[in-house]
């Protein structure tokens, strides 16, 4: 089986002036990342994540071992043509405008002028920087630079997206958009390697993760398998009377286990996006990046197998829907949020003799 990324005994050491090995940055790393997988590479600062990425991309040479990307070398132009890479910081040409920046990268990929133009406009829309497209990126805030960094990584409609700390410097909306984008790309058959130490981001989008420390993988596997507490259960309901709560406690006690009943908290990310959505709906002015409905159209588009950017270009040609400035807080969208249990299901749970007995677990 050909993996999107495979490392075989990949090792990188750093030596002092006399050639004596001082530090193992990456130590005998064996990774296999399948195509159409969102893989998270986690670890604290200095654990070897970025060094691994740089070796994958041919920016550093391994001391030992080998890394394969789509079965070839990461610095082979044929392989590079299928990769989109966002480094840990958006290293941009300060004297170029956003549009010129994307045009430069598009030219390196040999994209025709017309395709380049379409993709640039669509990507500028997507990252919400169309209004400042002719401003030198040297004047951008960190978050805006990050958005252009992301756009340059997508200009070639890559099969493999390598993202190193993609949400650094982004506001929650930008973070959310990147996560939605990752999931959308994954649905379209792309492979994503996400390198981060922001655990919530990784947890939301990754199929599998590996946790590195001291250059070695300390744990790896599917997110669900690693995090699921098999001996615990959680039930979320709508409003309940004290009586109903008491009955639930009795049921749980009869199962000889403990039970905690609290009002669930909304996720701060969800709450924040809702507030900003409302402000944007009221057309409050801002000098920062402005998200548009086109992002939403793009990210929530159907599951057809066309190139993401083709869909992006197509959506760019449509008029925005009035009132829906941001992508709506998901209800069955890419990222699941807690939802109320239906009343009839709850009734059956509280009065087991009236129904079949199984609750709706989430």
């Amino acid at each position, binding site marked *: 089986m050909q993996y999107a990324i495979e490392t075989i005994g990949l090792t990188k050491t750093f030596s002092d002036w006399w050639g004596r090995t001082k530090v193992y940055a990456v130590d005998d790393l064996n990774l296999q990342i399948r195509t159409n997988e969102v893989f998270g590479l986690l670890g604290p600062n200095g654990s070897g994540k970025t060094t691994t990425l740089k070796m994958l991309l041919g920016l550093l040479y391994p001391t030992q071992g080998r890394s394969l990307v789509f079965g070839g070398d990461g610095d082979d132009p044929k392989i590079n043509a299928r990769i989109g890479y966002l480094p840990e910081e958006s290293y941009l040409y300060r004297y*170029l405008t956003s549009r010129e920046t994307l045009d430069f990268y598009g030219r390196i990929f040999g994209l025709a002028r017309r395709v380049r133009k379409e993709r640039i406009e669509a990507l500028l829309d997507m990252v919400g920087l169309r209004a400042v497209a002719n401003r030198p990126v040297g004047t951008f805030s960190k978050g805006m630079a990050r958005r252009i960094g992301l756009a340059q990584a997508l200009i070639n409609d890559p099969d493999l997206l390598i993202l190193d700390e993609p949400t650094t410097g982004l506001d929650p909306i930008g973070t959310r958009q990147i996560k939605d984008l990752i999931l959308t790309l994954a649905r379209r058959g792309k492979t994503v390697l996400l390198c981060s130490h922001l655990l919530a981001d990784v947890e939301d989008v990754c199929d599998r993760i590996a946790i590195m420390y001291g250059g070695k993988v300390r744990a790896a596997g599917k997110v669900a398998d690693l995090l699921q507490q098999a001996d615990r259960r959680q039930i979320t309901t709508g409003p309940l009377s004290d009586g109903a709560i008491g009955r639930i406690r009795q049921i749980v006690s009869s199962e000889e286990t403990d039970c905690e009943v609290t009002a669930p908290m909304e996720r701060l990310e969800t709450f924040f996006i809702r507030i900003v959505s409302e402000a944007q709906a009221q057309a409050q002015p801002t000098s920062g990046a402005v998200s548009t409905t086109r992002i939403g159209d793009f990210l929530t588009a159907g599951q057809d197998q066309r190139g993401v950017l083709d869909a992006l270009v197509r959506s760019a040609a449509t008029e925005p829907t009035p009132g829906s400035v941001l992508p709506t807080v998901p209800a069955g969208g890419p990222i699941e949020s807690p939802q109320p249990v239906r009343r009839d299901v709850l009734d059956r749970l509280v009065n087991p003799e009236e129904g079949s007995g199984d609750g709706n677990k989430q």
Partner: protein
Amino acid sequence: MHRVLAVASNTVKQVLRMRIAVVFVLVLVVLLPVMAYNATGDGTIKGRLQTFVSYGLSLVGLLLAMLTIFAVTHSATSELVHRQIYTVLTKPIRRHEFLLGKFLGVLFVDVLLLAGLSAVLYGITVYAPRFMEVTDEDRMQLQNEFFTARKGLVPKEVDVSEEVERDYQKLVTNRELDQFFEGVPKRVVIARLTQQKRLEKRAAAVGEDIIWEFSDVRPADPNGSLFVRFKYDVSVNPADLQVYSQWMVGDLRQLKTGAQVTTPIYRVPRKDLIRASREFEVPAQVLARDGYLAVAFHNEVLNDTAVIFPIEDGFEVLYKADGFTANFMRAVIMVFVRLLFLAAMGIFAGSFLSFPVAVMLCLVVFLTGTVSGFVLDSFGYMGGHLSLIYDYSLKLLVQVLPQFDKINPTGFLVAGRLIPWSLVAWTAVVLIGIKAMILLAIGLWIFRSREIARTTV
């Protein structure tokens, strides 16, 4: 190729948006007209234009050389420092294409600026006389000696090695060596004797003659003119610092045979200031059909001093071979070739050195090449073992690097001398081209082999 061009066009934007490029251009655009107005030279119109062209072209060449060094090393190294290269080299571009793009981008800026500034320089030079008070004599002098591209014939150096060896042996036999050259190595004694002998061949005692002969002289216009250019040195300064002379120009073989004279022979009596270049004009019809030409100098008795024609610029016969415009263009091409070498040098240095070190290396090479003649001469004055060490180290290095002072086109333009295409081609291919390409190739190889990212743990 589209990848190379993408990097090149990005580099052009980088250089043009660097304030340093703007400053360079502004300095030149302001300075050139000011220089044209203020240049005085020797007080004549020709002198003013000579001074302007000399300083103008040198300044354009120097500032563009500096700009090239700074721009190319900055462009090649800043991407590593600011890490934009991470997002470029992870795209389908090979490393040598990236560096070639940088090289071509800076060269394009050079072409752009050099073309623009040369046009300004040329325009001012050609049109300035229209705004000056010019006499007919001045105009004639300008046309003959400045707005022209003349080819120069210099006498062949006579082989004096046998005579020198004989003189040396004589000194040894007569035990006079220590008397005249105490403690001087043989190599230096021979050099001094050779110099002395050569000057003797170019010296005329009181009442004596010197004859120079040339063959195959073919001026572009057979009805044009020949210019005999000379400079006197003397053993004893005359009271009025003037030398009286009789010159004869033409096919002097006709006088020897006594046959009928078919081509004219000109006799030119002169009185000229010593240690100053002077010239007189004779029709090109004096040339024999086979291209033979003889020029004879007679040192008049009343001078009471030997007259010597210095080896460097003592005697020359000039004739018009091309126009000023074509010559000016060749000069500009030679300046460009120099920039091409510096761009290759910058790529080489930037491929493995940091920006300040790379700039320093390029500046050292450039400045050493600009005064290479002086540097090489100074090695000649060293004695003993020290000289041997320098011969096989620094001297070798200076000789391997381009010697820019030997291919400086400004001197040609100022003197109205033809810059032959052969010199341009030789400069482009041998002196600069091959060396530049070797440096570029080494730079590309180093860049291809090195790690791009800096390792951080």
